[in-house]
């Protein structure tokens, strides 16, 4: 059972790598789009995926890793089923962001960058998302919420149960 699951997981990873390389070509300059696609499909960049990309692009593993760890939208750690992004930049902060951040932490019982033990939630802080006229802004998965107040936090999160 264990190894069957393991195989299944490995196949899924290799398929994601294959699809991304197929789409962009096995070229160094396409490394960021390739990693972005894999990250989108798998939710993060598992070590097996980075190994495979390194092999296929004939780039040292350290080079692939250095790119994978540099960009905010790429994650080398598994993330929860739902990812909550909180904008911590100044424009959101001065219009009530700080209170929203406290409400998020309290409601999810998570700190910045943490994932809940049941794998449901990951809470991360991000820099400006360019939606500043409706701050404070949070993004849950791909849904954007503007003018968020601490009172609205439970109601927004409840939509994802």
């Amino acid at each position, binding site marked *: 059972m264990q190894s069957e699951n393991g195989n299944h997981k490995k196949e899924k990873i290799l398929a994601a790598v294959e699809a991304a390389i197929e789409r962009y070509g096995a070229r*160094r300059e396409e490394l*960021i789009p390739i990693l972005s696609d894999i990250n989108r499909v798998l939710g993060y960049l598992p070590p097996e995926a980075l190994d495979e990309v390194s092999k296929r692009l004939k780039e040292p593993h350290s080079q692939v890793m250095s790119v994978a760890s*540099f*960009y905010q939208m790429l994650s080398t750690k598994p993330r929860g089923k739902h990812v909550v992004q909180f904008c911590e930049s100044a424009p959101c*902060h001065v*219009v009530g962001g700080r209170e929203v951040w406290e409400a998020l932490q309290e409601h999810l019982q998570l700190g910045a960058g943490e994932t809940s033990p049941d794998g449901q939630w990951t809470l991360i802080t991000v*820099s400006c998302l*360019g939606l*500043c006229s409706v701050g404070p802004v949070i993004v849950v998965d*791909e849904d954007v919420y503007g003018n968020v107040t601490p009172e609205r936090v439970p109601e927004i999160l409840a939509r994802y149960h």
Partner: protein
Amino acid sequence: MKIIRSMVLVSGDPLSLERGAEQVFQALQNAIQAFGLSDEVSVMMIGDVGRHDALPMVIVYPEAVVYGPVRPDDVRYLVEEHLYKGRIANELLAPVRELSGRVAWVAARKGTLPAEQRIVLRRVGLINPDDIEEYILHDGYTALGKVLTEMTPNEVIEEIKKSGLRGRGGAGFPTGAKWSFVAREKSEKKYIICNADESEPGTFKDRIILEGDPHSIIEAMIIAGYAVGADEGYIYVRGEYLLAQERLRRAIEQAREMGFLGKNIFGTNFSFDIHIHTGAGAYICGEETALIESIEGKRGQPRSRPPFPTTYGLWGKPTVVNNVETLANVPPIILNGADWYRRFGTPSSPGTKVYTILGNVNVTGVIEVPMGITLREVINIYAKGMKGGAAFKLAQTGGSSGSLIPASLQDTPMDFDSYAKAGVALGSGALLICDENTCVVDLVRVLMNFFRRESCGKCNPCRIGTQRAYEIMSAISEGRGKMEDLDQLLWLSENMYLLSNCGLGQTAGTPIKDMLKHFRAEVEAHITLHVCPTGVCKIKAFA
């Protein structure tokens, strides 16, 4: 092409969506069908319409009537009155706001209310950005035609030089000069890059342009390519801007189909094509050499300059890197001439500037106004005053690295040179307006947190300096600060400025210097009295 009598646009920015734009859109489709108008009226969702005071908005063309805020329940009445009976539904009209009109009001501003002056945003919210034919109907690709059939590359550069256009990404470098540097390089390969990695906190003007008028950027890049002798362009769009990416992809496809991109454009022997490269979340990639590194598939770490990208850019070739807003100015300058452009703004900073207004004011959003208006005018006229009647305390211009503008500088004209003379920077056009309830220590702490997080880590002064500055600001904010810390902060900001490799580290200390120059008493209160005068900072108890 189906003959459409009316076109109905629904605002689809995040706030509109949250307020039921989707339901309004559905209701519109249903009502139009119910009245049997499906063949003559088209309905579409567009992105941000550029004003945020009555969302969701419904705009009906060709009359350009703006309704808002529209609720799903209003829709049947709106369709019946306006589209079926042909009468304007007055009850649903959005509040009147002055818009454009080609007035050079800087010359005639005495005692008059300034209107917006839309040059780069002139089509945003007025056309369907997914339809190249609408762009063409609104003068689109006319400037390109003029350039390719009537002008030499040198004449194009001279016209841009004469217009006085300066880079709108923040630094204000003369665009014509930049183009001429690349034009005179002898190289078989050159590139045009559009910097659409807008990530300066508080800035989203480029997003509005890309979502609302993507073809204007494509047209400008082709013109730039012709002027400097480049045949390939890249648009580097930040990864978070999904809608902008989608719109650009479609626009590029359409431009290729129409023959504006590709081989032998307009039957001439000039060829040009554009690729899109999406970022993956890194503020530093807005720095031009970091952006180039990122296109090459590497970490976004800035190169040392010189050599500048104009001689050694993408893959070592001469490269023009221009901001989105800068490029959006190019087609109108070509079409109307440099003299026309110089009628707007000030002599040393001609043209308009797109600002994003944010913070503790009544109306936030985007405006495009001539260079040279003042902060007081922005707050009182466009932002309709401070929220809840609170007093103005400070504004930060140009995002995290921008200057903190105290009340005493509210009447300084906002253009590159007047601001430089006052010792502050205009930056990218974000205007974060803060009221008396904002604690300057708390604000600067948040800004330093941003820099320590976004520092790329390549050079020590920035990597360590931003981290130390954040730690000290946190200590002061918690009541653990010492007076010596203030000297340390100044020392850090001075050395980050002198020693950092790129603009990020060089400007990271700007807010610190401004804080100590204009708000020193407030900072000292945190240290000597263990009190945050605004009550924002959580001062920890002392034994």
